[in-house]
């Protein structure tokens, strides 16, 4: 098989995306309700956050606005996994029913083709909400604004996204080996809720676990330290882009390994 260039894939992605949006638009009511549901989730998350901080002015040396920054950061960095990799949730059914085999026969990358099939617009509501929170807390902390800081923010946000995408891919890929992988995926999905807390609240053992075994701390904590506490950034924060790429690559390999060994259901 000849290797196809990036331009080719970009073009094909837009074509598939257009088809997906068209089919989504035919279920307009469902689309609107889902979007409202997503916004409700974010508002509820924010309300519980607010109730908590009404009672406690700071947690472990982290002020209200700093925690808000972490919260907004995690929301924004979770957008790509929601928007571009939502088809992972259907992988289980596709593998189970045998529909997955159709992806194996296309002359393009299976992983790419599978993920490109669904674009989840709901994620955009979350993006807006997260950006609002982030900008608000940014101003309140008085971080100032330079092009370098913006660049740092973008780079480290992509890093954080990669980690979450990696966890989601790996969790979804378990369905190639076990039945009922929904629980695994749901577990990985719930990690995002823990990402918004500073890792320093945990004991050393769990700090280690949440950094290296289940890299939750890389979704918001380590990357945002670069912005929030620029004078004492730990090495792990600087390393996080590398770790993000490594985890993503690893999850891609796991996913593809499962897909390559997929033998179909015979139907």
């Amino acid at each position: 098989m000849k290797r196809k260039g990036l331009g080719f894939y970009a073009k094909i992605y837009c074509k598939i995306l257009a088809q997906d949006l068209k089919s989504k638009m035919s279920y307009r009511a469902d689309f609107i309700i889902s979007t409202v549901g997503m916004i409700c989730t974010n508002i509820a998350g924010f309300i519980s956050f607010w109730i908590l901080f009404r009672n406690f002015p700071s947690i472990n040396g982290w002020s209200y606005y700093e925690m808000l920054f972490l919260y907004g950061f995690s929301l924004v960095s979770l957008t790509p996994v929601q928007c571009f990799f939502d088809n992972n949730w259907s992988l289980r059914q596709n593998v189970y029913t045998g529909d997955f085999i159709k992806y194996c026969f296309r002359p393009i990358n299976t992983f790419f083709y599978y993920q490109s099939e669904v674009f989840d617009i709901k994620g955009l509501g979350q993006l807006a909400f997260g950006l609002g929170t982030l900008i608000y807390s940014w101003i309140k902390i008085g971080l100032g604004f330079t092009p370098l800081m913006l660049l740092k923010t973008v780079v480290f946000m992509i890093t954080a996204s990669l980690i979450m995408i990696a966890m989601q891919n790996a969790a979804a890929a378990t369905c190639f080996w076990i039945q009922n992988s929904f629980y695994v995926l749901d577990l990985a999905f719930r990690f995002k809720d823990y990402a918004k807390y500073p890792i320093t609240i945990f004991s050393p053992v769990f700090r280690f676990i949440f950094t290296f075994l289940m890299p939750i701390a890389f979704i918001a904590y380590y990357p945002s330290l670069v912005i929030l506490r620029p004078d004492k950034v730990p090495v792990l924060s600087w390393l996080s882009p590398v770790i993000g790429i490594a985890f993503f690559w690893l999850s891609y390999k796991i996913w593809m390994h499962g897909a390559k060994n997929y033998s179909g259901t015979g139907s």
Partner: protein
Amino acid sequence: MKLKKYLTLTRAGIIEALQFRLSFVVMVIGNLLYLIVVYFLWKAIYASAGTDVVNGMTFTDTLIYLVLATALFNFMEMYTVWEIGRNIQSGKIVLDLLKPMEYRKYLFWSYSGSFVTQFFLTFLPTFVAVAVVTHGAVPMGINLLYFVISVVMAVSVNYSIDFIVGTICLYTESIWGINIMKQVVVLLLSGATIPIAFFPDTLRTVVNFLPFQSIYNAPLSLLLNGSPDTETLLTTLGTQLIWCIVMMAISKVFWKVSLRQITVNGG
């Protein structure tokens, strides 16, 4: 005997639930992780607060409350909305409607098996673990009886709410959005994520007039209170009973009216 036909469904549910052992393991790991996060988060919160008692709750109280709220959630979550929604989409609902049993009851009793398994496999172990870890901070007396009575009513209220929301799916044919909205509203306003004692006064007053606090806050506050005075006891249980009856009536009437609306494609 009338009860026998229901108990047959319970038995079938138990057998079905025991089929999925691996998902059970994953669920336990997920809960354990959640409990760890909750433990450290609230520990840090209380450490930063500087006082032992916040809003009339100590750290141990809060911990017991939140841990058991999670256990209760796992115990009570029946995925009713998903089930109804899926049955509508697939058309299976037609077969269920033909059964010589009210649909509302049929659905409840076919899930009752998972109550039994969940109670013994997750709720009881969690309860024992919490009692041991907190060195017997859970009062063991007559309050256990009140707790059980309260939980039974909580299950009923929760099911009625689920059933009402499920009925809405008849109109919207959207499941995900409706379900996520229900979930965040119930979890937040029932005091499952943050104890209602921490809510600001106005919000708490509003929440007390809503049915949701009957689900988590009522049983848990009865459990934590070793020697409740008769007045508190009667108001809590009385409010629950009223909501029980009201929500049941609403869900029955709403279902009856909505059934005329149903359109099933195939099945």
